């Protein structure tokens, strides 16, 4: 599950991680209010208005049909209000959102941290994630902050440092010091960085994050170390022990069809193709998508119905796939183990009758427990459903349907 920047920052503050302060608002006049409050609190004449969407590249992205960037500095209350009103309700298109963009419902009015002072400011990069190969968490960091880290890794890999954390002992003080030294920090900034990294790691573990990225990690002109932006992904498997985090989910950021599928315990991912599919098991579902492609089609979705394929889930799956007007055929591929194929077949027949007119060809491949009975059921139902037992037969039928 992904969080918004303003939500992630609220959580980080609970772990004593210093952040660029701000106030989330959903109206332009509230943005003006927020600006005034921040000015009283921090004494800065500038404030940054940041669109809150689940995608990166906001600073370079533009609101559709305008020249307004997703992150902009306002130099007065009026200007902040104007920027907020330009962004709110608009659709922000960034390199990560795709051409469709994302609707902005909230902006974060944030303190300007690039204020002048005795020392130079500096932008770094720091993230914490799981190294699957080692089975350990790793802190990845670089002196090159504020930019695309993939590019840094590609062009100047020597500027990326990694610090692995022992699962038993956790992050050690010497490791936090090493990170601060490698970032070239001294004096107050060094001490602040050690504290920052230590507390950030505690937040990563305490909140069961799957990824926590601070870019830029910022040194102010008065030697503070703060998170200016924060991208936080939570481990879905751990949400059961964090109901307060689950409550922060912003459903408007998620694909409505995927949310709908989730209600039926269906694992659904929307894709761009013309052949819908419904499969039991994630691996077989991916393999089925591959097979659709090899047969001349393009998969329209990933849909894993799991171990409990029955009439209700099959019908829900049908309805979800059929919402997509691009779908030219639907392939149902079930390998019955514990799930009995004849029951799935009955589910398909019931769902078909309940939905009424399904205009696209349906190909049903049922294999495993009671596969022969299932094929018979479907053939005797009189429905326009094509039935297969072997995967290769199903592939051929898909090829015919899209030809």
């Amino acid at each position, binding site marked *: 599950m992904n969080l918004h920047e303003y939500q992630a920052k609220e959580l980080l503050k609970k772990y004593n991680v210093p952040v660029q302060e701000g106030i989330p608002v959903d109206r332009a006049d509230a943005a003006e209010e927020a600006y005034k409050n921040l000015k009283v609190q921090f004494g800065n004449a500038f404030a940054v208005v940041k669109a809150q969407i689940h995608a990166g590249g906001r600073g370079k992205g533009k609101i559709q049909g305008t020249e307004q960037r997703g992150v902009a500095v306002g130099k007065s209350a009026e200007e902040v209000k104007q920027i907020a009103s330009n962004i709110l309700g608009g659709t922000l298109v960034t390199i990560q959102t795709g051409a469709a963009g994302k609707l902005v419902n909230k902006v974060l009015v944030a303190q300007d941290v690039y204020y002048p002072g005795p020392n130079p400011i500096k932008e770094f990069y720091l993230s914490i994630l*799981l190294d*699957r*190969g080692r*089975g*350990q*968490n790793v802190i990845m960091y670089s002196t090159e902050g504020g930019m695309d880290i993939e590019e840094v890794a590609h062009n100047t890999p020597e500027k990326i440092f990694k610090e692995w954390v*022992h*699962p*038993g002992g956790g992050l050690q003080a010497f490791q936090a010091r090493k990170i601060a030294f490698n970032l070239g920090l001294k004096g107050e900034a060094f001490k602040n960085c050690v504290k920052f990294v230590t507390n950030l790691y505690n937040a990563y*573990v305490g909140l*069961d994050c*799957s990824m926590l990225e601070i870019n830029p990690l910022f040194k102010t002109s008065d030697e503070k170390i703060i998170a200016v932006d924060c991208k936080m992904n939570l*481990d*879905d*498997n*751990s949400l*059961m*022990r964090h109901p307060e985090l689950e409550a922060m989910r912003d459903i408007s950021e998620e694909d409505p069809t995927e949310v709908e599928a989730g209600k039926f315990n269906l*694992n659904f*991912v929307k*894709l761009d193709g013309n052949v819908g599919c419904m*499969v*039991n*098991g*994630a*691996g*077989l*579902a*991916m*393999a*089925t*998508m*591959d*097979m*659709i*492609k*090899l047969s001349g089609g*393009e*998969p329209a979705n*990933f849909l*894993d119905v799991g171990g409990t394929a029955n009439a209700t889930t099959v019908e829900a799956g049908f309805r979800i796939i059929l919402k997509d007007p691009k779908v030219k055929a639907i392939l149902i591929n079930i*390998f*019955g*183990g*514990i799930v009995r194929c004849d029951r799935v077949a009955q589910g398909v027949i019931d769902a078909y009758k309940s939905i009424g007119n399904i205009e696209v060809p349906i190909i049903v491949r049922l*294999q*495993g*427990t009671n596969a022969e009975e299932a094929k018979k059921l479907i053939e005797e139902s009189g429905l326009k459903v094509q039935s297969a037992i*072997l*995967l*290769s037969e*199903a*592939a051929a039928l898909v090829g015919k349907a899209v030809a």
Partner: protein
Amino acid sequence: MSILVNKQSKILVQGFTGTEGTFHATQMIEYGTNVVGGVTPNKGGTTHLDRPVFNTVADAVKETGANVSIIFVPPAFAADAIMEAAEAGIALVVCITEGIPVQDMVKAKLFLQSTKTRLIGPNCPGVITAGECKVGIMPGFVFKKGKIGIVSKSGTLTYEASDQVAKAGLGVSTAVGIGGDPIIGTTTKEALELFMNDPETEAIVMIGEIGGGMEAEAARWYKEQKVKKPVVGFIAGQTAPPGRRMGHAGAIIGGAEDTAEAKMAIMKDCGITVVSSPADIGATMASIIKK
């Protein structure tokens, strides 16, 4: 021979009296698996499915001599169950549970390093030695006795492969579902190595998917071996879009080497016969064996 489990294995079921545990233990017993008992805290001293129930794994091991355990414990408690089994000296722990928090597995994996226990899974269908012993949730009838070893990240794709192998006139020695999570106990390479050293296995089907570097690691290890058995490989997720989670938590395309395309190229380069369609696994294996 075969690998990991056989007729002599004594199986313990953790989460024995729950719905899942009861259903699958019954199926395992019907298959002929030697289930010697189970563990459900606070139900010790009772019996279930005509077998004794214990409060702790340690008690169960002392009384029954169990050397394999299968875990059907809910996700929040599953990592604890793995560590309890390892602490009690169980040689092989098979964890079926799906949805274990990743940080729990980070700790459990470290814990296992100081024991002699091998973990299969989590989030896997288990292990089956055809005609002898089923420690998992797979449909037993799909696995015909034979000489092909199967290692796979996916459950239903394992059944698919086994079925195709049988239709091609061959059979299975042991099938191992290693699981689709980012952190798992036994890797593709380790399972492949067990098969290469097993006299009853003549050839291997290796099924992977997008995400992680395990298939590349296995392929490179295979290339180094002097004595080789034929391997047919398939990688699911050639059409998966980058950055999206495809059901299995581990199936997110991230780095350069974890796309299906990259993995298939590495496997080919290392001498593995790679099929691009999942429908071709059985026939390809048969054509290689007959050569």
